[in-house]
């Protein structure tokens, strides 16, 4: 089942989505599998068979989940998104293939671009596209940039990019159309860890500029 709030990228709407995602985590019922937040919608995954077995009298399982969801939503009027106190720092060596072009098209220097990108604290709106790919935003208007007209067939793992007003990191090498401004030496998604993903939706992230030497010293890829 999908709960749609809107079809826009907006911090206030996304915070509602994530607050609902967090509210579900505290309101388990048998048959609820998981909830998945996106920019402005939340998917509720459930097992029809299990819900029906636990509630034999209900006519529609979908109706049951819908009513439950409405109850959760109405109970969270002023509930604010629960952020961890900490801000996740991500080191970036700003050497991306599109760094110069993005700066030039915005009429700024690459040094200014780095300053602007590292200045702000970003919100993880959602994770999707590939395991651990966090869509973060919003970047300052002065560094916003459209996607590449034709995507690269291979973007290296750890690449940091900008697409429109969003910024993100490719956890794995893959095709991709985001403009690349740098590279992080840390693993965003590590299959060997019991909590493999560095981020979760709702986290706050700050980028820190590092030198080539430090990048090489840390490089986990």
């Amino acid at each position, binding site marked *: 089942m999908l709960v749609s709030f809107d079809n*826009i990228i907006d911090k206030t709407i996304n915070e509602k989505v994530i607050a609902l995602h967090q509210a579900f985590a505290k309101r388990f019922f048998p048959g609820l599998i998981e909830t998945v*937040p996106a920019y402005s919608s939340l998917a509720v995954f459930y097992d029809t068979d299990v819900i029906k077995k636990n509630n034999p009298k209900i006519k*529609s399982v979908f109706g049951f989940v819908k009513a439950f969801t409405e109850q959760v939503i109405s109970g969270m009027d002023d509930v604010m998104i629960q952020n961890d106190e900490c801000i996740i720092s991500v080191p970036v060596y700003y050497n991306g293939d599109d760094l110069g072009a993005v700066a030039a098209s915005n009429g700024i220097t690459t040094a200014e671009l780095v300053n602007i990108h590292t200045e702000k604290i970003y919100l993880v709106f959602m*994770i999707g596209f*590939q395991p*651990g790919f966090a869509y973060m935003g919003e970047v300052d208007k002065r560094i916003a940039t459209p996607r590449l007209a034709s995507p690269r067939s291979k973007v290296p793992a750890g690449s940091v990019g900008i697409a429109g007003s969003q910024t993100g990191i490719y956890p794995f090498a893959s095709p991709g159309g985001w403009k690349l401004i740098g590279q992080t030496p840390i693993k965003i998604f590590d299959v060997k860890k019991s909590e493999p993903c560095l981020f979760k939706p709702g986290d706050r992230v700050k980028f820190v500029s590092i030198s080539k030497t430090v990048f090489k010293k840390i490089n986990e890829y």
Partner: protein
Amino acid sequence: MSIKIIKQGVLTTLQDLGRNGFRAIGVGTGGAMDLFAASVSNYLAGNDDSNTVIEINYPAAEILFEKDGLVSLAGADFTALVDDKPMPLWSPFIIRKDSVLKFKKPAAGSKVYLAVAGGWPAENWLGSSSTNLHVKAGGYLGRSLCKGDELQFEATSLPMNRQPSWNISQFELDKIYKPANIIRCIRSVEWELMDATSKNNFSQLQFTVSNQSDRMGYRLNGEKLNLSDTIELISSPVDAGTIQLLPDGNVIVLMADHQTTGGYPRIASVIKADLPKFSQLKPGQLVSFQLLEMQAAEEALISMRCLLNEIKYGCHFNFKKHFNID
């Protein structure tokens, strides 16, 4: 050593029912494409449905057994042979030490599941043994089985002197797999964005499974479908069975290894009860969609689970009787 891959297949992966709970960090469920056949292959071999099975595609792997085992095949008919003798589908059999299991030709379906009594050993990742090919985790080193790979299975204490004889009836299988080319679905979030002709065409016309089909999704070709207005959607969650309308007017049905979010309009969803049947389609085959209401989709899923339960009890009863287990 228990089995050894002596000839590599096109895609041979260890799978289970999939992993839940990690979609929010971008990790999809994965798992067997045909969950019905995967579960039944386990039941036939006396297992629970959570055991790991091998999902085999055609051209299929050839597998040398280095010890006796009670195995079963369920799903596609690839004309299974053991030492050149035909072996049954949907029925367990004992395979002897030093025998080779191979598959001669793809007669029907696209995926066959091989289960062994006791289950195949597999690497568990985030609560599931399903192979995640993207991040290379779970199953067997997170990849397809290659020539030379070996899998140990638990030595069984069961007497292997008599071939088992239980099977799944055609009558039961037809409930899941027939009619083969009619796939039931429900309207999805962006259904109403399609123009009237496209809505009509979706449920009236036939589509062809494209050869650009894999564990992530099956692309279909046919009459192009259109939206009434152009609309730019932002990424939103998707599921196995979600039918997305691509910019070129063709559709893709997302399968077990799909991405967790997507930005194309979701016009409909294949109902869970028809995903086993749909997953067994091959490139070139025709398919047509039949629209259902949500309640009918729920009833179909509940019936499938009931059938699976009956099959489980039947198989386990026969298994215990055959091996004199109390």
